[in-house]
């Protein structure tokens, strides 16, 4: 159906298709297991040709002897060669496993996916039969089967697969339910794609990891079951791993060695099966999510690599002694694909007591990293590599974690973007805020509860007592954010950092929260407000810093900033705000996107999107400089609206 031409553009590229085996091979345990299982399979299949003896050839003179030159793994009770029996026995055991898995998968997977995807009566049928089957003792069913089909292990193994299938279906069903809610499945439904195609293209690949793990566990169980049947003398009379265990256990007193080869075989086989399926599942999952960030154990390596990297030396200005918070030259590196990469660079600003400072910019510009680094709450592997953070007389950039913990919550409060998930769902709102009060002030439980109610009143929650007794899921977004603000105030902080506190809220609720934050400022608490919304900034902030690609590009009083932006990025971002839009005319958009930290250009970070760019902008890093006449600083050599003012060069 697909021609070669289409394959190249529309289909997955060749390198990606081969990528699966290559990525699996990079997992040593999985690769070794795969090789071992392949070897076992090969030897078993070729047993007729490569086995040194016939599995049933008897040599009574050499019965129950240990390993020797003639019999590498020794002999059994009738002098049969253990190695040959192991090779041939694998055929019986592995055939049993294959039968079990074939029945298990062909019944369980489709049933589970259809039940999860379609729901309805079929779903209920699958769930009920899974419940029913979990109550049936497997061994009794197998005894019945074996009494009908005497010593027919294939029948027993098929019955075993049948018994497991509803349990597999239940697991696959749950996994399918999750995939069904994915937006891309909804998009496919809206596109008129049939359920059959959706299940094949979107659901099956997503749940295959779960299926693999279940299959490997059940495969291992089948090996053990085969062994058990052999041990009970119910299984086959032919050579099999199970019957060999049975034989060895009978002679364990006279020849304990006999248990070693078959025992090792079974254990190693199960182990390899488990390791391989783990590796397969991880490799499959990587297609749906990029590998997680490197664990903190790599921090030292990251730090050393960063120390070696050449960097521009930026002379730090003195902190402002009058300011509550004075940040100078703050530079932070986070591991990106294992390499420490600067994500904010040379960030400086001051905040006076009772002032509201806005940090504005788009996603990926470093607003949140700046805020989290103030509190020492950087993600794993994150490191402040340069700069100072002076707050109430100490440098938080160099503070130990104990000292930071005393500042966090007590002197600097934090309000997060997502109010409901920032609260613990298993405690009431009142209990959580009271706990925060106790941690910060060390008062009694009773006093803490009282203080929590006072805080709820302060953030103007209607009916504080009722809210205190409510769990987070019972609160609306606006109420939850008020609880979040109350918690942030529990330590009576001098500074509150609010990270997009209203982004998740409706606009009418946002207005109420903004009013609340303004009242907070009137009581003398300083606020740092992180936002991407110029309206929110204009509503609340006195001054603002604009960040772009990890750097402060402009800092000014808010009215001056929004009426006469100096940096082309500020100007571009402001003009693309739809509030200024004229219907029917194109919006003045800034073309392109914010470059990720790994792709910051030399020179001005905004150069590739800037309408005023010159060659000088690309030559060397641009320094932030005071534009006294415009009462601001800007990181630009050709600022907008610059009249008779010289920048740094």
């Amino acid at each position, binding site marked *: *159906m697909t*021609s070669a*031409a*289409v394959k*190249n*553009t*529309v*289909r*997955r*590229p060749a390198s*990606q298709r081969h990528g699966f085996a290559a990525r699996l091979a990079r997992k040593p345990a999985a690769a070794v297991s795969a090789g071992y299982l392949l070897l076992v399979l090969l030897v078993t299949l070729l047993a007729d040709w490569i086995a040194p003896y016939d599995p049933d050839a008897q040599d009574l003179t050499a019965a129950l002897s240990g390993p020797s030159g003639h019999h590498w793994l020794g002999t059994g009770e009738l002098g049969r060669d253990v190695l040959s029996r192991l090779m041939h026995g694998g055929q019986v055991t592995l055939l049993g496993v294959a039968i079990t898995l074939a029945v298990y998968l062909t019944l369980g997977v489709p049933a589970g996916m259809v039940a999860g995807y379609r729901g309805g009566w079929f779903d209920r049928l699958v769930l009920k039969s899974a419940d029913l089957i979990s109550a049936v003792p497997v061994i009794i069913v197998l005894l019945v089967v074996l009494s009908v089909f005497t010593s027919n292990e294939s029948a027993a193994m098929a019955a075993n697969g049948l018994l497991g299938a509803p349990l597999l279906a239940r697991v696959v069903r749950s996994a399918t339910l999750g995939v069904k809610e994915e*937006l*891309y499945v*909804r*998009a496919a439904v*809206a*596109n*008129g*794609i*049939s*359920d059959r*195609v959706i299940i094949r*293209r*979107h659901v099956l690949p997503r749940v295959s990891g779960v299926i693999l793990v279940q299959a490997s566990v059940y495969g291992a169980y089948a090996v053990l079951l085969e062994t058990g049947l052999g041990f009970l003398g119910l299984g086959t009379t032919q050579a099999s791993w199970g019957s060999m265990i049975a034989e060895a256990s009978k002679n364990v007193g006279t020849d304990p060695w006999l248990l070693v080869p078959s025992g090792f075989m079974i254990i190693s086989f199960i182990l390899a099966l488990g390791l391989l399926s783990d590796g397969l599942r991880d490799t499959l999952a990587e*297609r*749906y*999510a*990029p590998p997680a960030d490197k664990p903190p154990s790599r921090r030292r390596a990251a730090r050393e690599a960063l120390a070696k990297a050449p960097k521009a030396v930026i002379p730090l200005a003195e902190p402002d002694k009058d300011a509550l918070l004075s940040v100078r030259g703050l530079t932070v590196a986070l591991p990106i694909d294992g390499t420490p990469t600067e994500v904010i660079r040379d960030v400086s600003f001051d905040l006076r007591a009772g002032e509201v400072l806005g940090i504005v910019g*788009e*996603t990926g510009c470093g607003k949140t990293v700046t805020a989290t680094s103030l509190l020492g709450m950087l993600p794993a592997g994150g490191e402040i590599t340069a700069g100072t953070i002076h707050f109430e007389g100490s440098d938080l950039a160099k503070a130990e974690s104990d000292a930071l913990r005393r500042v966090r919550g007590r002197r600097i409060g934090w309000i997060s973007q997502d109010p409901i998930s920032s609260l613990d769902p298993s405690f009431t709102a009142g209990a959580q805020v009271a706990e925060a009060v106790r941690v910060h002030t060390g008062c009694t439980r009773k006093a803490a509860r009282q203080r929590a109610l006072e805080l709820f009143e302060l953030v103007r929650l*209607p009916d504080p007592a009722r809210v205190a007794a409510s769990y987070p899921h019972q609160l609306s*977004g606006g109420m939850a954010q008020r609880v979040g603000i109350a918690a942030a105030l529990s330590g009576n902080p001098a500074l509150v950092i609010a990270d997009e506190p209203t982004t998740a809220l*409706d*606009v*009418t609720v*946002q*207005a109420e929260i903004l009013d609340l934050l303004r009242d907070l400022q009137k009581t003398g608490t300083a606020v740092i407000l992180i936002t*991407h919304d*110029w*309206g*929110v900034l*204009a*509503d609340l902030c006195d001054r603002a810093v604009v960040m772009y690609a990890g750097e402060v590009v402009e800092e000014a009083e*808010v*009215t001056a900033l929004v009426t006469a932006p100096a940096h082309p990025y500020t100007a*571009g*971002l*402001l003009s*693309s*705000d*739809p*509030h*200024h*839009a004229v*219907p029917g005319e*194109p919006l*003045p*958009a*800034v073309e392109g*996107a914010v470059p990720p930290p790994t792709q910051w250009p030399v020179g001005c970070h905004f150069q590739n999107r800037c309408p005023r760019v010159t060659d000088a902008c690309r030559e060397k890093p641009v320094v932030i400089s005071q534009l006294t006449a415009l009462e601001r600083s800007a990181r630009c050599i050709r600022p907008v609206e610059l009249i008779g003012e010289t920048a740094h060069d």
Partner: protein
Amino acid sequence: MTDQPAAGTALLNLRDLDVTYRRAGRRGAAVHAVRGVDLTVHRGETVGLVGESGSGKSSIGSAALGLVTVTGGRVEFDGADITRSSRADRRLLARRMQVVFQDPYGSMNPAHTVGDTLAEALRHNLGLPADQIQERVLRALDDVGLPPGAARRYPAAFSGGQRQRIAIARALVMEPDFIVCDEAVSALDLSVQAQVLNLLAQLKRTRGLSYLFISHDLSVVRYLSDTIVVLYAGRVVERGPAAQVADHPAHPYTRALLAAAPVPDPVAQRQRQTERRHALAAVPAAGRVSQGCAFAPRCPFAQETCWTTRPEPTDHDGVTVACHRYDQITAEAA
């Protein structure tokens, strides 16, 4: 279905639409997401659907697309009743009616290349031959301003704005005449949002597309729409020409929505702070449930009638408003 449609005729027509969700597990506990909504999208028209979370705006889009079960009323598309259309009918409808979702990260299967994602409906719905699929995919990518090489890459390689362009391209490959944009620009940053809005406006002009544009942001809706429909608690409270509704709102809720949206101007914003405090009742009267207008508990103009009788939508010079106090409020404003 006619081949040469006249501009201005109704394309999507919702009549007295009800959507009710049953809460999982509990029998009988039902959530009325949409109640008695009338809405028409004409050919070549963009209808903006505004409301806060829980107002039912997304449910209306999903009902049109057949993604949720309609519990009452009718959905008509180009004159045909599609309220309970079968999957086979939906397969045909998907060729004319498409969707762009809010989340540019979740709306594409991360394990499929962009080309594969765009080709899916062409291959499995239209059953086109490979060379035509190829051609349409490349043309759609070009239409949204992405290079042909994008087809070979995976969604993870693209930024949010680029992914939303891909999502638009996926809608375009089917060459539809109607697209539901469900918060299609809400997750995007300002500069990128402007790019995508421009793209949508340009596609509307060049292809004569009609949009049902769902958003919580009145300023975005105002920019793109011809008609604005304002929803509150599952009901239409105001409907009219975009400029009229967004600049001179009549319903107290639309007024509150407009007053509460902060503008990027500190001086104007100080004035608006006072206005918005008047636009919403300070604290909703706790405990009392309104049998009439759902907005009554938050409405500064609410009177006893508002609590007891549901206001019917009435026409006032081309704007439909469902408010008992329309006359007094407009008289006060004048």
